[in-house]
């Protein structure tokens, strides 16, 4: 029984380790996005080489985050994979529908402000979180 318990703990520890790794990649992506967005104005005064480097680092870290997400998903069991996938589908769907309507609002002059991609990213993140919480509650 102790052996079995330790196997479960190793599996859970591995999943937790992958989740932590994913969180670090996500945080790194947010930080490099901020660097690419504000670095040219605040730090290096629009130096072209540094600006390109900032964007390349941001894209590279973004791909790292994608692979970390894939690895994390593969380590989950089938119920948790379903919860994750359902939340991702909800997030993608809501993001697509709201982003297209949001863009339309400016075109048909219902709003004057330029639609920002960051608003859509925030919406998709919050929708994903709601989907994950709802999924865990559903199967509790």
């Amino acid at each position, binding site marked *: 029984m102790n052996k079995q318990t330790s196997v479960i703990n190793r599996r859970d520890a591995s999943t937790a380790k992958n989740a932590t790794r994913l969180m670090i990649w996500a945080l790194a992506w947010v930080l490099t996005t901020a660097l690419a967005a504000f670095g040219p104005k605040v730090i290096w005064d629009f130096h072209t080489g540094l600006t390109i480097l900032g964007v390349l680092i941001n894209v590279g870290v973004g791909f790292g985050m994608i692979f970390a997400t894939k690895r994390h998903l593969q380590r989950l069991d*089938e*119920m*948790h994979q379903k919860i994750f996938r359902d939340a991702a589908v909800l997030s993608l769907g809501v993001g697509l529908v709201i982003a297209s309507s949001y863009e339309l609002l400016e075109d048909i002059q219902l709003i004057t402000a330029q639609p920002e991609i960051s608003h859509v990213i925030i919406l998709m993140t919050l929708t994903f979180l709601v989907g994950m919480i709802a999924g865990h509650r559903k*199967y509790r």
Partner: protein
Amino acid sequence: MKNRLKVLRAERDWTQAQLANELEVSRQTINAIEKGKFDPSLPLAFKAARLFDLSIEDIFEG
């Protein structure tokens, strides 16, 4: 989907964690299956049938 997983587990005096370990899933997944909230995939149902030395139909009802 109704199933006899909880009864079969209790007969062997196993915890949910032990069964989860045998089937290589999380304890939460075993709990959800026992409560009929989550339907296992066919491979997982076969794995459970092999573990209890029963047919799938003996464990899971349609």
